[in-house]
């Protein structure tokens, strides 16, 4: 590159750096102004979950259909404001041993009414998601120093996050389109996509199910845990997060998951299965619920749990 004979490098470096800093701040400001992510900073959201410990009465566990589908705040309104509820879902999170151990650690030992709500998806019952492609494991495998930095400097890191193509589209459309996500400190991400793509998830899931199937070992290991939790006095609930009819059909055909058999074995292990009406909740991509759908699902599930508790109380 060109090198001049006499010049002030410090001045030149300073000017280029200042202009770059201004441009970076300008782009960052545009991202913030027309950004589609709101609420708690996402770095703090995810790293915060890792630091949860022994603090809940009710815990939700599962993959992205769980952390996008269940609102702890709505459960709290129905089950009681004194209930401490956390959504411990992670991306592609399978029910592997390490994850389930941490789920167990989230309950306050002094809590008298421990409840666990499991979002049972075929994906969460694969070896891949239980051990490798697991959002929880990927986070805890990071250096603790990096996690602390994520937690302490989350908003700063987010400001400098790379521009995704969707960010650019969102900026161009003044924030009216994009993947909207509201991060709640209780672990729920309220989501929506504009424009919606109801079949967006189908292709990736077809590819996934061509490569792997539901693992009997992962299922057996999970049911073992359920049995153990039940004996410890934890009420373990489970449900099948609703998806689009097309995705439901793909998973029924290709995943190797037998929902009826699982439900039977789950109940034998002491769990309480919650049935839901699948067509009632709106998905923006075939796999994940839009915010209104998630709120409706949370309401329905919370009411079902409360009803179950009333019935149990009457029996007693």
């Amino acid at each position: 590159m060109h090198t001049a004979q006499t010049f002030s490098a410090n001045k030149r470096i300073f000017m280029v750096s200042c202009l770059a800093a201004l441009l970076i701040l300008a782009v960052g400001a545009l991202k913030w102004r027309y950004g589609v992510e709101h609420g708690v900073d996402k770095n703090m959201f995810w790293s915060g979950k890792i630091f949860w410990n022994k603090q809940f009465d009710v815990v939700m566990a599962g993959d992205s259909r769980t952390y996008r589908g269940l609102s702890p705040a709505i459960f709290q309104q129905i089950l009681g404001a004194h209930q401490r509820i956390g959504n411990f879902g992670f991306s592609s999170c399978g029910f592997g041993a390490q994850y389930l151990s941490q789920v167990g650690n989230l309950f306050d030992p002094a809590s008298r009414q421990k409840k666990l709500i499991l979002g049972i998806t075929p994906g969460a019952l694969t070896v891949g998601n239980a051990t490798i492609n697991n959002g929880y494991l990927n986070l805890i495998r990071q250096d603790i120093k990096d996690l602390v930095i994520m937690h302490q400097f989350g908003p700063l890191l987010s400001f400098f996050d790379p521009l995704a193509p969707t960010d650019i589209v969102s900026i161009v459309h003044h924030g009216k389109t994009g993947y909207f996500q509201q991060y709640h400190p209780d672990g729920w991400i309220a989501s929506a996509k504009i424009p919606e793509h109801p079949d967006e998830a189908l292709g990736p899931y077809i590819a996934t199910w061509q490569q792997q199937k539901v693992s009997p070992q992962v299922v057996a290991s999970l049911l073992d845990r359920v049995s153990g939790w039940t004996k410890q006095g934890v009420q373990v609930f489970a449900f099948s997060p609703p998806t689009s009819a097309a995705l439901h059909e793909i998973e029924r055909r290709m995943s190797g998951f037998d929902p009826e058999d699982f439900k039977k074995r789950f109940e034998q292990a002491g769990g309480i299965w919650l049935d839901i009406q699948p067509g009632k909740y709106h998905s923006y991509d075939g796999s994940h619920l839009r915010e209104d759908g998630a709120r409706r699902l949370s309401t329905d599930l919370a009411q079902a749990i409360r009803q179950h508790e009333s019935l149990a109380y009457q029996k007693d």
Partner: protein
Amino acid sequence: MLFNSFIFLIFGALFYWLWPHFKNKEERRYLFLIIASFIFYGWWDWRFIFLLVANGLLVYYTAIAMAEFPRFKKGWLSLALLGNLGCLMLFKYLGFFTENINSIAHLFGLSLHVSHLSLVLPLGISFFTFECLSYAVDVYKDELKPTRSLLHFFAFLSLFPHLIAGPIIRASDLLPQLKKVINPTEVQKWEGYKLIVFGFFKKVVIADNLAPAVNAAFSTPAPEYSMLYWWVIMLMFAFQIFCDFSGYSDIARGLTKWMGYELPVNFDHPYVSRSFREFWGRWHISLSTWFRDYVYIPIGGSKNGLLMGLYAMWVTMLVSGFWHGAAWTFVIWGALHALYLSVERLTRWQQPLEKLPVLRHLVVLLILIQVLVAWVFFRAATFTQAMAIVGLLFDFSHPAFRSLHMLKPFPLFALGIIFLWEFLVYIKVSWAAKRREETLSIGGPIGGRFAPVFIEAAVLLLMIVASVYCRGPGGAFIYFQF
């Protein structure tokens, strides 16, 4: 810590803020460099520091012993080599050896089974081991007087910009520089800044955006995609590894320029080479010159005739392949390059083509194609996967455009940028060669008389912004695994 990390930003800012206060007194300067470098290195894992110190102490004292007790020079050298190479073998190749012993035993129907052992690979072990070895050998050959200051030695060995992934520095280059109080010149400061910016751009924008596409392609043990798809993927990998590694070297050179020191150029646009000899003069220059000086020439080099020359070259390339990784695929990669060099040396096939105006450019393309084929073995997880991919690269029976839809736009865009950049370099090289100008160091396509300062500044500005907002999924530098 990674150069492309938030914590390095803080570290770097602190280092350069404090540097002027520590650089003027010799011992204080060395101590400051050592402490900073140990913090940098130990940030990954503090245990690695012990290995660096142990290797360094061994070489430092054996070098002094060679000077003090020259009668036993060979013994001292052997001790230094044994210690350093022994550590390298233990940490890097133990798993490879146990695996192969078991395979051979199984092949012969023996009931022998060695437990598969492998240790955590300390970062940069291959690089600082080679620096230790070259220090010991240079002292042995009386080409270097050993330093009598432990701090001076460790300041050279551990200097943080080059510690993890090179360039591999000769003590004779760096020790004298470290002794002096040097204020970086205006040119050094500006050149250093450009190198740092360009290095980050190559790493985080180009290499890190190419990586996901390459990783996805190689994640299948039995790949199926089309011929054209694989040529695009191999081009992506070629530029991924080039940008990743040369980016690191550029950042390392830039950081040391800001201290007033000079590290050698490590990559000089290798993909514009017109021969494999030229390629190895442009790719990982510090490593290839190390192998030339400490393996090729001691074996005999080309002094003892063609056959001995070929023998020395094959040994060097096979060892070089093995240095890159504890797997037979790396050895095959080295062997392929040895084959290319042998054919070139024996046939000089480029010469007739060089004479014709259009075919002259074909030579560069043919070299690149052969390099891409060799890269398959470098990147593949297994020999079987590599052969499958090579088969697909030359499989004309399947529709060439099948599977291209699997390639996402952004990696293609990143490939386009770097390909265009290197293509402009090639045009500049060809133009300069035509005008018989000296092109020992090409610089970039906008170097020299082509770039008014404001264009240079504008390009740097865009690179900085792109490095923030167009960076790919973060990852360690590829050569950290070596």
